[in-house]
């Protein structure tokens, strides 16, 4: 941790705020992801996690606060410029381009690099990325025919095609069966080993415990805890946020 903390963080969010009418979905949130780190963004449904990701990736503009990515302020920047800087994401409701083949889906993440890649590099990268997520030999198939986990794999391959420094995963492991979950966790771990920094929104506790170096917990738009996964999951404030208060239950860890 001390070694990581000495370098400037890949992503540094400070005092990030966004309201929809009277509802403050993200309320003065601070967050940092260091190089090679997996940070979990946790919290009950409706706590503002996806809004936070949308603010970071440029889908939404923040009302106030700053977002620095790789040393550059990106708050308010359009999504396509943020993507070109090397920030990639997947979506809570998986989004593959159903009218295209699997290879074209991956190509979508490769064709708009600055400076552009050569045709040879693109073709080579499509094969490598499909193999990486376990979709070798599926390149020619239409994406519409994929199973749920394969859609998730394809979406991840498209995100990796941007050669990101930071990957945002929005409930990427949700909806997988137990054996698929193990495969998914291994895949994310392999990305970390390649040096990628990851910010993931997740509800699957096994995945959080085994993957995350640190977690930030949100509730009703505010940050209520931060620390190692076992610490925050034992935090009384976190347990209360997820389960509510019950006078008969002791929250001592």
């Amino acid at each position, binding site marked *: 941790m001390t070694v990581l903390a000495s370098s400037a963080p890949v992503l540094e969010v400070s005092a990030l705020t966004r309201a929809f009418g009277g509802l403050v979905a993200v309320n003065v949130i601070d967050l940092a992801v260091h190089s090679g780190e997996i940070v979990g963004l946790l919290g009950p449904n409706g706590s503002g996690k996806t809004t936070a990701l949308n603010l970071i990736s440029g889908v939404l503009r923040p009302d106030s606060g700053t977002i620095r990515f790789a040393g550059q302020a990106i708050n308010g920047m359009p*999504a*396509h410029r943020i993507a070109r800087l090397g920030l*990639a994401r997947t979506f809570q409701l998986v989004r593959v381009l159903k009218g*295209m083949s699997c290879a074209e889906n991956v190509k*979508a993440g490769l064709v708009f690099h*600055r400076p552009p890649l050569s045709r040879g590099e693109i073709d080579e990268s499509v094969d490598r990325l499909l193999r990486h997520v376990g979709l070798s030999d599926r390149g020619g198939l239409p994406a519409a025919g994929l199973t749920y986990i394969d859609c998730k794999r394809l979406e991840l391959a498209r*995100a990796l095609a941007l050669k990101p420094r930071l990957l945002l995963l929005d409930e990427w492991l949700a909806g997988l069966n137990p054996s698929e979950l193990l495969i998914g966790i291994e895949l994310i771990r392999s990305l970390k080993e390649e040096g990628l920094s990851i910010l993931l929104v997740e509800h699957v506790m096994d995945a959080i415990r085994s993957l995350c170096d640190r977690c930030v917990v949100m509730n009703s738009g505010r940050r209520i805890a931060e620390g190692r996964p076992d610490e925050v999951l034992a935090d009384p404030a976190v347990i209360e946020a997820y389960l509510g208060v019950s006078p008969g239950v002791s929250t001592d860890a």
Partner: protein
Amino acid sequence: MSPTHIAAVIAVGAGLVVLALLPRYADAYYLSLAISLLQFTVLATAWGLFSGPTRYVSLATTAFFGVGAYIVAVLGEVLAWPLVLLIAAAIGALMAVIVGISTLRLSGLHFVIFTFGLAELVRQLVIWYEVNKTRVLGRYVFVDITQNDIFWQLLGLAVAVFAIGWLIARSRLGFALRIIGEDETVAKHCGINVTLAKVTLFAISAVFITLVGAIMAPRWTYIEPSIAFNPTISFQVVIMALLGGAHRLWGPAVGAIPLTLLFEFLSARFPATSTLIIGVVFLLIVYALPTGVAGLWERVSRRRAAAPPVQA
């Protein structure tokens, strides 16, 4: 190139030569019909260039068409013809960029209404200007352009619109537009400047439409706002592109040819009720062929491709 490609190139080339010689053996009626066919082929194909991949339905066709016609009416006698066309193309592009930047962030439905309003706005502006400043409502178009010239220029424009469409489909812009048509949010997160891509394509499409208006203007000899900015053209172009299938480059042309003939026939035989019949045709197409002839063709050929293993 494979033998089929070479055969296709030769067939297209031979077809173009035959078409280019048409004014030599066709009489005035057939030449006029051929001009109408080419006019709508270019308009519908240009419309499909933008609306096919983006799925934005534009009713601004007549706005660009009318501006092209008026540029000829104003500048046709003053400047050389190629220069007039060049100015028409530039003004069409400029107008499309301004309209595009201000409207392409709108959702599909708002865009439809805005483009319809735009055509009416431009028409009213021209009327206001003519009534208050020049004090005439109509203008005579006196330029040294024959029907044959109009035909050849439209034929050239048709070749250009197909060539540009073919090139776009193979370019990064074409791929970007396919992704935008599938999912705009994904497109942005792939690093695509969505607004720039849409405005660029809208401008390319508008240049062709404006040029058709400019080239067609000498055919009338007299124009006024209600002729140049006739909203029926916008709707006819949409119907043609939908019949053929706007998601394919060749789709709109496939729709333009039979419908131009039909509209020609209807306006000659049933001048009073032709608009009503056009409306019914529109409804039938949308219900019976939602993806156009191109969509039907794809379904049939897919079924055929799937059939052999069953028989074997």
